């Protein structure tokens, strides 16, 4: 798939939407408007968008506790997401899931997941559905350097190879599993290499570069849609916030985050690339920024105004009342 102007603008819009969404969630969380825990995706946008640019609504993704970016990139409604984070009626999950369980089956979004390593086996199942019903769809598992160490992930990769399924494992290596470095926790320090050991093509790409992610995913998606089985992509990326909102980040180096923001901002990289190459103009990008800012304002206003879920919904959507 060649990236035309519209596709580039859409990619930029999705990346900016994720960034502004997360920055605003951080603010609203600090103000006490969002209960529970939130894990922010800012800094990693090129991964979600580079991957999801190849997916249609019939394709599936499974996500992680850091799932807002994947949800937006897969087409989930931003206002519905904000309502869900605010625990309000009308949220994507009716206020019963929250940040860690945002899901939208109509858009092929099988859920953020509160369990690290929870998603990979589910994606094997979604890929099995695609293969069994011959839909031509693919299923993509987002997980991280942390998830790469879970046994469920190993089992999922092996089964996907054994059954030759249209599954793609995307490992977003942001350098930290909670408060512990991937340098310490990933024994081989090579997630792509470990994935290849399961018998699938695997590459490592620069996650600060949307186009690198996009290209790797193009190849993986083609393989999956052609019936040639699963692939893995290790995306080297970085997170601009802590593990969760409110994380004091005592494990990070002095000035580390400031440097990341200056030197490894995938959004700024994208802007530079497309304007230098005269693919898009600065004013077009600025117009997108303005649209997105308005959308986020609208989402927060709607979330603040919405009522809490009705008390009776405590007992709905489950099969047995005791």
């Amino acid at each position: 798939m060649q990236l035309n102007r519209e596709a580039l603008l859409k990619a930029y819009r999705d990346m900016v939407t994720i960034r502004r969404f997360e920055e605003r969630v951080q603010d609203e969380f600090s103000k006490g408007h969002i209960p529970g825990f939130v894990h922010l995706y800012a800094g990693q946008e090129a991964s979600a968008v580079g991957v999801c640019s190849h997916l249609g609504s019939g394709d599936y993704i499974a996500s992680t506790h850091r799932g807002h970016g994947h949800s937006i990139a897969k087409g989930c409604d931003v206002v519905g997401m904000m309502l869900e984070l605010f625990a309000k009626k009308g949220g994507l999950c009716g206020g019963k899931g929250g940040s860690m369980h945002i899901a939208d089956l109509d858009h092929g979004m099988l859920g953020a997941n509160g369990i690290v390593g929870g998603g990979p086996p589910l994606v094997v199942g979604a890929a099995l559905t695609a293969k069994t019903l011959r839909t031509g769809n693919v299923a993509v598992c987002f997980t991280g350097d942390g998830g790469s160490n879970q046994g469920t992930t190993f089992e999922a990769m092996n089964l996907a190879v054994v059954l030759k399924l249209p599954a793609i494992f995307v490992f977003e290596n942001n350098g930290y599993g909670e408060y512990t470095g991937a340098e310490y926790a990933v024994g081989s320090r090579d997630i792509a290499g470990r994935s290849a050991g399961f018998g699938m093509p695997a590459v490592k790409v620069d996650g600060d570069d949307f186009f690198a992610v996009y290209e790797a995913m193009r190849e993986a998606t083609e393989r999956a849609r052609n019936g040639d089985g699963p692939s893995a992509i290790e995306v080297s990326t970085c997170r601009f916030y802590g593990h969760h909102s409110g994380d004091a980040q005592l494990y990070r180096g002095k000035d580390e985050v400031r440097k990341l923001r200056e030197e490894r901002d995938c959004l700024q990289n994208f802007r530079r690339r497309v304007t230098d190459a005269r693919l898009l103009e600065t004013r077009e990008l600025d117009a997108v920024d303005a649209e997105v800012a308005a959308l986020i304002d609208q989402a927060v206003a709607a979330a603040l105004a919405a009522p809490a879920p009705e008390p009776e919904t405590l007992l709905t959507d489950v099969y047995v009342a005791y």
Partner: protein
Amino acid sequence: MAQKTIRQALHEALAQEMRRDPRVVIIGEDVSGGAGTAGGRDAAGGVLGVTKGLITEFGEGRIIDTPITESAIMGAAAGAAVTGLRPVAELMFSDFLGVCFDQIYNQAAKFRYMFGGKARTPLVIRTMVGAGRSAAAQHSQSPYGIFTSVPGLKVVVPSNAYDAKGLLIQAIRDDDPVVFCEHKLMYDLKTEVPDEAYTIPFGEANIVRDGDDVTIVALARMVHYADEAAERLAREGIDCEIIDPRTTSPLDEDTILDSVARTGRLVVVDEATPRCNMATDIAALVAEKAFSALKAPIHRVTAPHTPVPFAPGLEKLYIPDADRIAAAVRDVHGYAR
């Protein structure tokens, strides 16, 4: 009507549902067997032969042999269920739930509620329970109480071939995840089973035997021991009513409470351990909702709070039998304030 074993009844239910609905697939270890070997496929058909022969009719695209990989099997089945298939996943021995519980407990069971009612998870987990084969501590347990404690799961514990077929078809057609527990000593047990497909609704207990003196609630293999005890007790002039709940989630509370309202006496029999389990759960239910009807303390007849032992003699002591059930019934029947 033909006499069929539980094994035949389950096989028939699976084959009929697979013919009826192309979305039904079977996935698990050795559900056909023999993949990647010098011998032929269908070398096993499930370790106890329930799925034998299905690959001939349905092919390896729908009878899906997997590696030994319980987390991936359960997770794949859950992921397939929310995206449009109706998988029947085999968790060979229920004891193996320890290596895949997340996929059952945190994933499949919670999708519908956690996603605000927008997910359907039509998944059946077939699994073997029960002691009695000297299979020891990791192949003999009856953990349906653990599954029953999880909101979002339905749990089936059949005691005969007629129920097994009707309940398995119901489970496959159900839109929620169902754990279907098969007692490993009962596969050859025969009863009359219709050839055609039929369903038995969940949450409807079967009154196995009528009686007015003592209510016995029993599950799976214990239903047969309870019946043996009741035969003996009838000769002593004690008439037992035996209730087989058939599903522990949902649980048919009304049938149990109605019976205790008449008899005033309850013995609950379960092969599982006693703490936080079905016998305790049903005893609490009756103590809370039928207290005024009770003429005697409720008795529970269960395994001891120990792992399942290996030695045949110890295992025999572990499993409740007709003697212990009869003794408990005599106790509650003879109780006077």
